[in-house]
């Protein structure tokens, strides 16, 4: 009798197999990472742009964890990015700390802030959440702006010299080291995130996002799950910020600016949420588009970004990436 209950509770072989299949790494994922890391050794130049791209991707992935897996719309994700950037820059400037240690310090500090603000976040409804995320980011912006003696205020924090990586590899001016460093950090963190979201924990997040009420009925502690993933997302964003500060040797108020939170949201919308690779696709498209628009209309490129957002929402993301459905009649339901 007891045996049959244990059998009933443990997942069946078929379920376990489908779970394994769900978490399997596909060949094209592998190919992507081989190309991305290989680029560091093969390409002759263009590392500065690639480095920026890698950081943007990591930032987008961090938001995807929060938005795509927990369904929390954040308008202030730059808070963690900026905190990480300032933390890494200050540690490097005043203590000459090892870059890897700097990353870890930034990640933990950002995670701490994430944990603290998640207390606010799990209370209240949509609007409150939006306000809290945005409020935290604006608060940090003001703090960084006013604490001139520490952060350099509006002038930015200059004179950050990085220690060599592992005590021996110097950061060169062409950014080869920087890119290699960033892409490796990205690859490791991406893999970790992938394991995380394809674990039972990740599955429970899906349930929480799709139907919090039902998740609670299934015995999932909804608020704790949300707080956990928000904290993890914050740590990821902190690492992204730290990478930016370390590889450029500079931190300014720009890292906390509202447009950064909006941009990363746009990236995810372009790429799609909830499968991690959306961050990569979105970041690449966004960066290319930004460069192209900025070269055409240096001052007004934001107009086109805004137009894109409006079009995406009004037409619908699903419809926009499938041009062959444009002239078909809408077959019931919202597009």
């Amino acid at each position, binding site marked *: 009798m007891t045996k049959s209950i244990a059998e009933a509770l443990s997942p069946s072989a078929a379920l376990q197999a489908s779970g394994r299949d769900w978490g399997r790494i596909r060949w094209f994922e592998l190919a992507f990472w081989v190309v991305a890391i290989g680029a560091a050794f093969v390409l002759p130049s263009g590392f500065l742009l690639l480095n920026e791209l890698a950081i943007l991707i990591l930032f987008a992935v961090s938001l995807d964890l929060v938005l795509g897996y927990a369904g929390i*719309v954040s308008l202030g994700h730059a808070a963690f990015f900026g905190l990480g950037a300032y933390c890494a820059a200050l540690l490097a400037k005043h203590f000459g700390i090892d870059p890897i240690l700097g990353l870890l310090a930034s990640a933990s500090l950002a995670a701490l802030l994430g944990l603290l603000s998640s207390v606010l976040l799990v209370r209240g409804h949509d*609007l409150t959440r939006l306000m809290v995320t945005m409020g935290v980011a604006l608060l940090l912006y003001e703090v960084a702006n006013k604490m001139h003696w520490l952060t350099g205020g509006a002038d930015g924090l200059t004179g950050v010299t990085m220690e060599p990586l592992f005590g021996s590899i110097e950061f060169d001016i062409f950014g080869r080291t920087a890119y290699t460093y960033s892409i490796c950090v990205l690859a490791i963190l991406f893999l970790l995130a992938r394991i995380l979201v394809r674990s039972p924990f990740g599955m429970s997040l899906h349930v929480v996002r799709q139907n919090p009420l039902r998740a609670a009925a299934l015995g999932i502690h909804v608020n704790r799950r949300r707080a956990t993933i928000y904290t993890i997302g914050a740590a990821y964003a902190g690492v992204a910020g730290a990478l930016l500060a370390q590889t450029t040797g500079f931190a300014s108020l720009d890292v906390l600016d509202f447009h950064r939170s*909006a941009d990363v949201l746009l990236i995810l*919308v372009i790429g799609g949420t909830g499968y991690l690779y959306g961050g990569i696709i979105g970041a690449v498209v966004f960066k290319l588009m930004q460069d192209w628009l900025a070269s055409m209309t240096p001052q*007004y490129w934001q107009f086109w970004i*805004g137009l894109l957002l409006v079009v995406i*929402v009004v037409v619908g993301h699903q419809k926009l990436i499938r041009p062959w459905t444009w002239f078909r009649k809408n077959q019931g339901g919202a597009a």
Partner: protein
Amino acid sequence: MLTILFDGVAYGMLLFVLACGLAVTMGLMNFINLAHGAFAMAGGYITVILTARWGIPFLAALPIAFVATALLGAVLERTLYRRVYGQNELNQVLFSIGLTLMAVAAVDYFMGAQQQFLLLPEWLTGRSTIAGVGIGHYRLFIIVICVLLVIALQLILSRTRFGSRLRASVDDPRAASGLGININLVFISTFAVGSGLAGLGGALGADLLGLDPTFPLKFMIYFLVVVAVGGTSTITGPLLAALLLGIFDVAGKYYIPTIGAFIIYAVMIVSLMWKPDGLFSNVGKK
């Protein structure tokens, strides 16, 4: 001290006029309109253009700004906003941020990035001292107009047929439309009036708040604070929230300038922590 209080009240009143449209549309349509500030900016620029280029007196420009932004709001509601109502929160946020970015860039393109100045008529620029309290005429003017507006809005909401329709729609749109209320008409007129009020607020505040293309982004958080703290179910909620915000902000900037806008965000976070649904909300009392 009293002067600061006075300035704070004027500032708060202004914020209320700017934000009350947002509160009503949010309560009515459940739509988070981050582009609300863009309407305010439109109102401000319309007034500046009317007074500076065409020589229309300031008092006449105000109603024109109201009507023009209301029309703009109505057109946008019909063409764009309507499609986004039913969509999820993320799409609403993206859509309205997109609109805001477009508005910022467009104004930058047509008007330039510099700050615009409003030519006030002479009788509004002075400052007199009454019983030891320094009172700027323009601020007094703002307070008077805003008080009149508040009274008018309250009367419309509580006494007229449209007001009761509006309240019914806010409480339960489905039941309201089942009772034969034309929800779409209520939506569009509310949106238009809300945008118009924002435009009027922008016109009034062009001098006090400063008007440049980044206006919608700079003040977006203020509007949202008013709505989030005040709740969306009444007019008095946002009014009190706006007054609190105005007084705190002015006093904070005066007494402890080093902290600056810090206070506002701190107050907002604390109040949202204490009462996540807004200080004056009646959610749950239904």
